[in-house]
């Protein structure tokens, strides 16, 4: 397990965090890492490894049962988030894109959805309207302004959800399986947008189990095992070529499959046209 050199104040500091939902076994078991400003980090793990929970912890939605999580140098506790200056500032700076867009879009129309965050920040009405217009332009969804949120396609929902976060002007984006359930074109659009945001200096933390989009989403990968511990921390290329690690954490598999007339079994992942050589 390597810990990279972080330049400047870390955005997130996680030290020995444990979490279990009430009545259920632990899903985060003693995880520690740091994330610096401007980084693109992926939380990689199979389903059930605790990555979504970890994102929720980073967003201050839950408090760890033991251990410490700090953001911008301040430990995240319920009291800290209820204080009148740190709380709203934190909520503005850190935004979480949920996996379930239906849960994220809880306002009746797109316009109101984008307005929700800014209104919670108690900004003036014309400031709120300006942000709505600008964000709609940015994500090219101005034509959806007056639509009801339930009438949108999956790709549109994701973009509106992202817009509703960006309207608050965050500096950190946490993304929970952002490409899940999206058709290829919507995926491409989303990845482009995220690229652009990264160029603009945003810190991105993405939870995913999809190895194919991984190189597009992150430079650094934190690998979570099925035992809910951190199993690896390194650059994307290094992690992706560490087949043994990937097999251990159930991100790739080995099962019998055919190549022409040959039936064999070896670790692989299902990607379009996976390339490897073998003896005939």
């Amino acid at each position, binding site marked *: 397990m390597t810990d990279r050199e972080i330049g400047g104040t870390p955005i997130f500091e996680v030290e020995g965090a444990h979490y279990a939902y009430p009545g259920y076994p632990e899903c985060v078991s003693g995880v520690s890492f740091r994330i610096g400003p401007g980084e693109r980090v992926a939380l990689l793990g199979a389903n059930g490894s605790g990555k979504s929970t970890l994102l*929720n912890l980073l*967003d201050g*939605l839950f408090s760890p049962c033991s251990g410490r999580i700090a953001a911008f140098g301040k430990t995240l506790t319920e009291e800290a988030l209820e204080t009148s200056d740190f*709380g*709203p500032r934190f*909520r*503005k700076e850190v*935004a*979480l894109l*949920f996996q*379930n867009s*239906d*849960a*994220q879009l*809880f*306002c*009746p*129309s797109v*316009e*109101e959805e984008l*307005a*929700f*965050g800014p*209104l*919670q*920040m*108690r900004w003036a*009405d014309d400031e*709120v309207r300006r942000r709505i217009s600008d964000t709609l332009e940015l994500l090219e969804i101005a034509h959806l302004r007056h639509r*009801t*949120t*339930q009438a949108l396609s999956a790709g549109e929902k994701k973009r509106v959800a992202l817009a*509703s*976060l960006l309207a*608050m002007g965050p500096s950190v984006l946490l993304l929970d399986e952002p490409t899940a359930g999206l058709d290829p074109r919507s995926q491409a659009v989303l990845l482009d947008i995220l690229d652009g945001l990264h160029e603009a200096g945003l810190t991105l933390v993405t939870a995913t189990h999809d190895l194919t989009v991984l190189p597009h989403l992150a430079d650094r990968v934190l690998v979570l095992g099925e035992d809910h511990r951190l199993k690896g921390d390194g650059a994307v290329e290094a992690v992706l070529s560490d087949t043994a690690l990937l097999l251990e954490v159930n991100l790739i598999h080995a099962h019998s499959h055919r190549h022409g007339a040959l039936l064999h079994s070896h670790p692989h992942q299902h990607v379009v046209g996976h390339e490897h050589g073998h003896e005939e």
Partner: protein
Amino acid sequence: MPNLPEWLIKPPPQTVFDPHVGAPRRGRFVRRALGEFAGLLAGPFMQRDDSGRSGLLQELDPRAKALGLLGLIVLTTWLATWRALALDALICLVLVALSGIKLRRLAGIWLAVPLFSALLVIPATLNLIIPGEVLLPLWHTGQGRWGPWVMPDAVGVTDAGLEAGARFVTRSLLCVTLALILARTTRPDRLFRGLRALGVPKIFVMLLTMMERYVVVLVRSAEEIHLVKLSRTITPGSLRQEQAWVAAGAGSLFRRSRSLGNAVYLAMLSRGFTGDVHLLEEARFRLADAAFIAAAGAACAALLAVEG
């Protein structure tokens, strides 16, 4: 390859089920007919038009519509003289014309409501309920006592009864028409926002809009649950079993509602929600909105005057 059980590989020697077992033969036709009839009556109410069609009323601010139309509805339930009801009907027709709602759609309602209301009050037209002069005698019972009850000479439809029944039916029809105009020219979330004009607190509006937004999600969930069961059903079970199944479906739906509710809470929390509700301020009233309210007010005044 895992070892598959034999019954999965080979079909059973003879068919195991009989599609006719369990479904009572008698009364199936009647049941179906009744079901269709019920569907006919209930159908018009289940349509949810998006207020996308063109019409004057669609353009108005929902607050103006809420004030004006709700006021008219409340007043309508008070009216008792035929003069006033006639004027009310006229006002209704004008509003229908302004709303751009196709008459075809309303026709369903205008059939269903009087039918339904009439059925409800038919017994009231008899002189058993409302005393009065018998217009249409139905059968002669002969005066006398039946147990504790005193019987009239003939049982029949009375004039007073007919009038009461007719008033009932007319008023119902007018109320429903007005309510439909409001509902069909206004998108639900805007309608709830419009209630702010009536002094409804913001949190109420937030609850209503959020609730409406998720009803569709839950309905789809419920349908899914139902389809799963349907796809596994060959013959219907006993009444008890079927009822238990519906209830289990409700329970299952509750679990989804709860988990969705929790997820929504986290999403709201993440965007800075602390419990106070802030709504985006609507644009100001325009001339047309003020004019509508004034017109509605005038209509109410006229109705009251005519009522006497």
